[in-house]
């Protein structure tokens, strides 16, 4: 596969790189620098550099244990999410498994459940007197000891189930764009189905798998909500819970320095990622014959589908059902009987709470703008990083993805530090929310597209340029269509991310700019109880699904329809 080494890259759009680099430096690097300064103890009260906070963090055995736990969890989640998401993606994109659309919809639904709610649903299933434990352990005595969700493995389970749709979406779009003729050639040359899968398809997909794997890894390292709900009960700390702990004792420099340690780990993983892609270049010419024969599962077709469906029932339908059921309960903890049901939770949300409508409106607006902006900037950054030879393009890419690696709370604090003082004062206005959302979403835009670009040979673009097309024309007619699925996946991810976002919202919102996150938080910490929180989540999910259906109806690209065998 290594056809071309040390090739020249197409000299890209230098004229757009300037503004984008400025935006990235301003919006993304500047808050990071403020955080870095705080981690060194440099602030208004004390301008002297000190490494004390790092020394303190690094010499503390608690940090080391948390670091170890973090890496274990992130690694585990990445592995499980890739196996699950990748396997499903292959089944959907490459085989003749029935009801592909249904599978896609269910996986997408998983992704709409806020991770906090997902964690609570799993506690209901696997908690000390959870449903599954009662069944497997007490009733059937199938297992010797009750399963314990409150463990690092529990965090891995919930986070992996939360993240695998990301992998699925990225890999389905990549598999669809991938050249299937190579696989067919392998088959014609006598390779078995499995051999073709492992020697052709998988290596071809490697850049995409690594790219989205990196995304999941970094995201998991920064995850706080699930780690807190599932890790804390039995004192399993990860770095983010330690960071929150420092925040809670108002020790900002320690929170900042621990975040920097997290960032450093992430940077190392990022370097490994780039290194692993260095020596390999893959050709992937998108020929017109994209409609290759799907792999026939033969008599395995139905059993396979049933297996997938059962799996998805566990990962999605049951938790989703429990969220919906809870949202109709009169009170959290009641049993699911008709006399315990009510629609009052929905009425309270929109009744006494006048901010509810505004919150939904604001969040949707923010999400729309943030997703669109990140899609554009993300595309440009990915392009610069993979298609040009501009110096420091990999730094640019890493800087753009750092927000992924720290918990939302830290990102919000960095935004406070960066944007509170004149002349850069946007703190206290809705703009700070928008900007911070964009910063938080940018990594998803970059990652989703990057994998696609990495995996595609610039040959087509070069050919267009040689044939006399301008750079812009080449980009518009060749590159853009090839990465559209990635842009879409990134857009949707960013959109959902903003809708469900809590910590940034709660720390940065201003009067009038309430968001769904603010609503969720106040319901949660207030008198609403979990039943009302669930109701908000259900409304959110319904809105997302409705939006998706609308987009599907009116915005369905003509080309893809023929491409999709289902």
């Amino acid at each position, binding site marked *: 596969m290594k056809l071309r080494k040390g090739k020249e890259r197409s000299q890209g759009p230098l004229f757009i790189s300037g503004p984008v680099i400025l935006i990235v430096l301003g919006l993304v690097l500047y808050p990071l620098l403020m955080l870095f300064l705080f981690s060194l103890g440099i602030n208004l009260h004390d301008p002297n550099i000190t490494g004390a906070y790092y020394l303190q963090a690094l010499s503390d055995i608690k940090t080391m244990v948390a670091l170890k736990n973090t890496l274990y969890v992130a690694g585990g989640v990445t592995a499980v999410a890739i196996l699950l998401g990748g396997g499903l993606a292959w089944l959907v994109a490459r085989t003749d498994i029935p009801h592909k659309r249904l599978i896609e919809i269910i996986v997408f639904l998983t992704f709409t459940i806020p991770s906090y709610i997902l964690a609570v649903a799993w506690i209901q299933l696997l908690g000390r007197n959870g449903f599954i434990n009662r069944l497997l352990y007490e009733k059937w005595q199938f297992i010797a000891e009750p399963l314990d969700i409150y463990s690092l493995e529990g965090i891995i389970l919930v986070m992996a189930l939360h993240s695998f749709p990301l992998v699925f979406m990225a890999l389905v779009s990549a598999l669809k764009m991938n050249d299937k003729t190579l696989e067919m050639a392998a088959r014609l040359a006598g390779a078995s189905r499995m051999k073709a899968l492992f020697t052709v398809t998988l290596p071809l997909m490697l850049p995409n798998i690594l790219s989205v794997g990196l995304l999941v890894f970094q995201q998991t390292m920064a995850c706080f909500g699930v780690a807190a709900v599932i890790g804390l009960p039995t004192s399993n700390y990860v770095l983010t819970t330690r960071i929150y702990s420092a925040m809670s004792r108002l020790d900002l420099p320690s929170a900042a320095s621990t975040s920097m340690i997290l960032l450093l780990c992430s940077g190392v993983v990022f370097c490994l990622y780039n290194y692993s892609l260095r020596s390999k270049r893959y050709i992937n010419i998108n020929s017109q014959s994209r409609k290759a024969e799907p792999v026939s599962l033969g008599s395995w077709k139905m059993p396979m589908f049933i297996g997938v469906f059962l799996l998805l029932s566990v990962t999605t339908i049951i938790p989703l059902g429990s969220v919906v059921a809870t949202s109709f309960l009169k009170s959290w903890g009641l049993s699911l009987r008709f006399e315990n049901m009510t629609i009052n939770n929905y009425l309270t949300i929109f009744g006494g709470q006048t901010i509810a409508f505004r919150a939904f409106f604001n969040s949707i607006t923010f999400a729309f703008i943030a997703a669109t902006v990140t899609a554009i900037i993300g595309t440009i950054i990915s392009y610069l990083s993979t298609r040009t030879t501009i110096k420091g393009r990999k730094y640019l890419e890493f800087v753009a993805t750092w927000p992924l690696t720290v918990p939302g709370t830290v990102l919000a604090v960095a935004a406070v530090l960066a944007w509170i003082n004149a002349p850069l004062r946007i703190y206290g206005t809705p703009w700070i929310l928008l900007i911070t959302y964009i910063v938080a979403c940018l990594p998803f835009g970059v990652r989703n597209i990057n994998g696609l670009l990495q995996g595609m040979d610039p040959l087509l673009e070069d050919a267009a340029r040689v044939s006399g097309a301008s750079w812009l024309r080449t980009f518009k007619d060749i590159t853009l269509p090839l990465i559209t699925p990635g842009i879409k996946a990134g857009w949707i991810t960013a959109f959902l991310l903003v809708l469900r976002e809590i910590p940034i919202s709660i*720390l940065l919102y201003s009067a009038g700019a309430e968001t769904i996150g*603010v609503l969720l938080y106040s319901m949660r910490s207030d008198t609403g109880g979990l039943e009302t929180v669930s109701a908000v989540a259900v409304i959110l999910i319904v809105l997302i699904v409705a939006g998706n259906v609308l987009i599907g109806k009116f915005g369905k690209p003509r080309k893809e329809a023929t491409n999709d065998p289902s």
Partner: protein
Amino acid sequence: MKKKVISIVSIVLVCVFLFSGCGGSATTGVQEEKEEVQAYAGKEGRITAYISGPDQMLKDIEEGFEETHGDVLDVLAMGCGPLAQKVNAEAEAGNVQADVIWGAEPIVYIEFQSKGILQQYVSPEAEALKKEYVVGDGFYTLCNARYGVIVYNRERVADSEVPVSWQQLAGENWKNRLAIADAGQSAMALALVAGLVQMEERGWSYLQALKDNGVMLTQQNNQAIEKVASGEVDAAIAPHDGVLRLIKKDKKAGIESKLAIAWPKEGALSVQRPIAIVANKSRPEINNELCHEFVDFVISPAGQKIAAKYGFISVRNDQSLPDGVPKDVKGVSIDWNNAVKEAGELRNEFDRIMTSK
């Protein structure tokens, strides 16, 4: 590769020098005229308050205050944790945006006071306060109390088993049935732990006993209560007001709540919610006036009645207890200054005990 490393290091160094240079020069300016640097974020004739508490209560308070003052108050609602973190981050950046902050725990306010971000004000209403609540030299005013109590699940705890004292929870029959919020994650939980530890004879042995009993930690207090409601644990140590509100909600929905409160005979741990005015020299006089009036209102009988409706205990000596709180309730005061002094040790010990195998 080497080149890359060198270039990264040099970039970082340049940035550090650049920024530390800026920081240095800016700071000398700050020290000379600290107050001038802090610009006033608000508008004249309008104040902003960061408040934690039930949404509906904040709405009632805002309406109650604006009834006599007109539309002059912006309320930003948030939880106790975010409130403290937000103010702290703003303070670190040298510009707290709120005029008044209300909520969270005394430990947080003592910290803020030592950072010099609070402004002294003694309300004329303070004369009507119970004297154990007059603390803080006017840098903050205690305006409601919450009681740390034992909340239990009525369906899973038999009447004969209902705990009457803190000590009982250390007993064998409570093994794997308890929850409490993590003192490292929640300032309220830290306050409760400080109270438990200060109840002398127990010291750390009490928490150790809870740990031996397999106590489950949660991030927030309300999550401990949720676990009681769902039957995952049978009892939790948590503030009383949230429980009262949930019981009230159940009553309104026409069901008998699973939740109930046991009031320990040694006394409920009294954790107060302070209110404070943020120091800002450039705040217009009229806004200062409004801040004073808002503090007055919150501790006035009218303000206290609103808070009592949501379960908070009044700090005044002329108010009755909220529904659901027994008349003969005994509150145990916690020595906050001591708790602040020992906060580091409290967190470390808590951490050590809870992470021990």
